[in-house]
């Protein structure tokens, strides 16, 4: 394991300190926790937006803390959802009297821990609403199982719900727009290499030199299909087709080509080339494209493609200013 760290069991603490030290005007640490909040939190009469999850997805989620985006991010251990007490601290830190909205990625752990925190907050009289993001089309959608995972599309929820909250919208309105984003965003990912959780010290799976995994999550877990490595065009086509099959994207979309951690940006642009060609062929017009690392999986090499179908409201909110260091417009 080659990592620039101090103690494998201290990486999250060290990271949180380093993050707050980098952006002291934008964010602060809630003392005694691993919660990062907007420096001016709580903003009175504004809905507070809280997200988070395991660490290792940087810049998600703490890099999205800032005016017009998240009010707080809860940093769990690496790939391990944060505990209810931590989420509860975040809720308290951002409650400005207009209620708190939770953006949860659909993992059993995240859902359970955030739900328990919501119960604690409601018991103290804080109004809490939530949305569960499940954009990963690699996983079959079924109400009898855990359902689909939340991956890179979550960042669109942060951005758009964050802009809505910043505009002074009510908790119900923030929830409505967040649900609209969740209903209209789909993603799919692939990986060339696994990653190593610092405390584990070993990769969680092995891939041969000519293999890749299609339908990968963002927690170092194996993908849904293992195949021979293919060309960038073939990869882009496989991911995009699967996303397009799952939802009607006719009209205008936002595109996110997300790197999982170790993929050179050059490769993301090569993927983007093909994705844009496919969309143009289908007559889908692209309003805005995001290429870069938005939701990573430590040093995994690979990428995901996300599409978000837009309407006028979503476009306006997507374009709104953001003070989050990892998502400037």
């Amino acid at each position, binding site marked *: 394991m080659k990592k620039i760290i101090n103690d494998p069991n201290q990486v999250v603490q060290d990271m949180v300190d380093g993050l707050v030290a980098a952006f002291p005007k934008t964010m602060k640490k809630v003392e005694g926790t691993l919660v990062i909040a907007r420096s001016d939190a709580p903003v009175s009469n504004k809905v507070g937006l809280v997200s988070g999850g395991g660490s290792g997805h940087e810049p998600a989620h703490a890099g999205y803390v800032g005016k017009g985006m998240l009010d707080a991010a809860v940093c*769990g251990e690496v790939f391990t959802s944060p505990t209810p007490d931590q989420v509860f601290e975040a809720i308290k830190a951002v409650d400005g009297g207009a209620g708190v909205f939770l953006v949860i990625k659909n993992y059993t752990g995240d859902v*359970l821990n955030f739900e328990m925190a919501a119960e604690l907050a409601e018991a103290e009289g804080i109004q809490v609403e939530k949305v569960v993001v499940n954009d990963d089309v690699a996983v079959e959608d079924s109400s009898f199982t855990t359902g689909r995972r939340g991956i890179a599309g979550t960042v669109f929820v942060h951005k758009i719900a964050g802009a809505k909250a910043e505009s002074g919208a009510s908790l119900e309105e923030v929830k409505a727009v967040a649900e609209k984003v969740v209903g209209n965003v789909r993603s799919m990912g692939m990986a060339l290499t696994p990653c190593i959780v610092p405390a584990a010290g070993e990769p969680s799976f092995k891939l041969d030199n000519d293999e890749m995994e299609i339908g990968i*999550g963002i927690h170092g877990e194996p993908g849904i299909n293992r195949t021979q490595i293919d060309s960038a065009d073939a990869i882009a086509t496989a991911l995009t087709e699967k996303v397009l099959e799952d939802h009607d994207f006719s009209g205008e979309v936002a595109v996110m080509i997300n790197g999982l951690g170790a993929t050179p940006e050059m490769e993301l642009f090569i993927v983007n080339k093909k994705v844009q060609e496919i969309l143009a062929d289908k007559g889908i017009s692209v309003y805005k494209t995001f290429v870069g690392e938005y939701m990573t999986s430590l040093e995994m090499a690979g990428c995901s493609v996300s599409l978000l179908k837009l309407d006028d409201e979503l476009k306006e909110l997507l374009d709104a200013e953001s003070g989050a260091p990892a998502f400037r417009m």
Partner: protein
Amino acid sequence: MEFNVADMIEWFNKANEKIQENKAYLTSLDQPIGDGDHGINMARGFQEVAGKLSENDYTDISAILKEVAMTLLAKVGGASGPLYGTVFLKMSMTLKGRDVVDGTAFTKGLEDALAGVKQRGKAETGEKTLVDVWQAVVEYFQAGNITADGLVEVAARAKERTKDMVATKGRAAYFKEKSKGHIDPGSASSYLVFEALADVMKEKH
């Protein structure tokens, strides 16, 4: 059977030992069908539980269980944190005010724990989760005639049975048919918890 405050503490100390010893094993079970952190999560939580229990004095079984629950909730994270937290919180509520419990009371505690974890996880038996082990153990206690060896055997068999199941809850569910052939990590940690319980029962003889 009959447990007092010292037995309960002993239970969690032994559980901690077993979890620490099996940290890498539990993590390795979580790698092919999960995210490879179950051992790390459980070891972090139980380490803290053992620390907490050694620092304070307890006169009440329910207080111990509540301490365990709150510590696991705050330290484990992931799916298993709230689930194990719920299990021991429910037991604590059922066994409120007692400084000693007999088989009947303990069985009631296990029943309520199982119901709680099923509700929290929206899971039933057969979904390849720790519910499978807890269900088997609850049924064994309900049948009466409880022995240490019997308990270990029942828990072990339930754990092994998860191997052939297709997961429909938790991360393993993403792998659908491919989740077959792997023991569920949460069932393996629950097995260790009951193995620890059996050790305490044995020592009492």
